[in-house]
């Protein structure tokens, strides 16, 4: 068993006892494999943000438990050790708004410094994470507030990567970026995953982004896990996914429409390459 993160019957209720009481997670069982890239998809209010905040102990489950490497992250006394936050790095949505230091290097060093590392180790990690997110060395001494939005976001992601977490969770890392910026950020996340072998969770509602990088997908809907599996397995249920108000990749929509018109194609196609191959094969098959 190599689940790095696991939840069992995880339930979270917001505002218990007020008129605004709302169940954000209802008996959720999720297992994350070591070293995979897991895409988490869901509507606003489906519980995905609540779920990821349980993974590093920022939120306490109303009931159920969260296991990291098979160990519950909450002690029986109801405490969550700070070390969990260093092992499970969480990058929030629009992380550029959390920058506060005078220089980029100092801001990235905030996490490692909180870990109590030596100055030499901190410097090394800052340099390494700046390289990983594609920030040039000369920027280290500059103010983060002088940067562009996309660059600021890189600094914020580097600030979490510098803690060298075993699990890196990113909430909507590409929100509000232009297509080029999105590609770059996704490439850097993939590079980080390749180089360090860390487990990566990406929350997004862009199916295109997620289908591109994820090994497996977790679809949340209405406080429950709606589907969990490889992109192929998940997108094979394309019509159901549309019915809960989520989008599927454009190419999958094309294939579904073709199927409706009587072409017998695999409904789980989710990249243009797969579609091209499938259509070629179809053409060949019907020539004979």
């Amino acid at each position: 068993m190599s689940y790095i993160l696991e939840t069992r019957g995880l339930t979270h209720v917001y505002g218990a006892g007020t008129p605004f009481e709302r169940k954000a997670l209802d008996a959720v069982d999720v297992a994350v494999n070591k070293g995979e890239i897991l895409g988490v998809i869901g509507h606003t209010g489906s519980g995905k943000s609540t779920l990821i905040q349980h993974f590093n102990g920022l939120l306490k489950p109303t009931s159920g438990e969260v296991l990291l490497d098979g160990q519950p992250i909450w002690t029986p006394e109801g405490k969550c050790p700070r070390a969990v936050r260093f092992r499970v790095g969480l990058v929030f949505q629009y992380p550029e708004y959390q920058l506060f230091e005078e220089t980029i290097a100092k801001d990235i060093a905030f996490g490692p410094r909180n870990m109590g590392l030596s100055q030499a180790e901190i410097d090394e990690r800052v340099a390494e994470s700046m390289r990983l997110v594609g920030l040039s060395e000369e920027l280290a001494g500059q103010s983060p507030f002088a940067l562009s939005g996309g660059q600021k976001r890189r600094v914020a992601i580097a600030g979490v990567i510098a803690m060298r977490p075993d699990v890196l969770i990113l909430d909507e890392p590409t929100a509000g970026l232009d297509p080029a910026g999105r590609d770059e950020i996704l490439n850097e996340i993939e590079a980080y995953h390749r180089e360090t072998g860390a487990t990566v969770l990406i929350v997004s509602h862009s199916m295109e982004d997620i289908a591109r990088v994820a090994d497996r997908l977790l679809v949340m809907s209405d406080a429950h896990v709606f589907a969990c599996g490889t992109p192929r397995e998940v997108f094979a249920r394309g019509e159901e996914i549309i019915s809960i108000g989520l989008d599927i990749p454009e190419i999958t929509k094309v294939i579904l429409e073709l199927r409706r018109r009587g072409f017998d194609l695999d409904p789980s196609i989710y990249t243009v390459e797969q579609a091209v191959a499938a259509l070629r094969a179809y053409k060949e098959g019907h020539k004979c």
Partner: protein
Amino acid sequence: MLNDITIGQFFPGNSPVHRCDPRVKLVIEIAMIVTLFLAKGLVSYGLLALYLFAVIKISDIPAKMVVRGLKPVLFIIIFTAVLNIFYTPADHYLWEWKFLHISAAGLWVAFFMVVRIMLLIAGTTMLTYTTSPIELTDGLESLLGPLKRFHFPVHELSMMMSIALRFIPTLIEETEKIISAQKARGADFDSGNLLQRIRAMIPILVPLFISAFRRADELATAMECRLYRGDVGRTRMKQLRVSTVDYQAIAFSGVLFAAVIILGRGFGL
């Protein structure tokens, strides 16, 4: 911790209390505060408490939420009670120890003080619970209207107030987000000495200020784009109008407050 802030919180509804004109509610509120300070004995305070219970009942606001509004002032309530119990001078003391003494009169004063503060806070929370911030500032602007003659910037003030009230929940949400983000990077707000704790606030305050300025800037641009240029020539979508429910509220409150004042001042009840 931040969830306890109920100032400016509004519970939408369609009760007669909600439908009341904000100006009428504001005037009644002020009258109630004045009456509260003129009440004297069990009967007059009891009558006012009953009045408030009736208002809460009619408004459909859960009583629990009103009690929650009292939580932030709990310390002040306890503090006043303790001071009054121990320091009210009297001829006859029930209990004495050095400079501390308890008298029957002191207990009564403390009791009425506590009731007075609680009613005061509960009354004002009811006003904000049942009146949207926009209505409230509209009402205030209309009531302070005559001051415009003396070049008092009534409209500007009420606009500033609307904006401030509008942004309280936004900034609370923002603060919670920033706290979570810094915690995720291992920030520690709960240990260390005073100096360390103050320094631990920097990672929260800097982003919060930056975001407040950014929001202010964006809002100013948005207002300019819609050609906002202050009070002159500005009309309202919702005109304030005094209707039947307002007359009923005025009559009900007026009679009751008069009774309280007569009982309290005239008969000392």
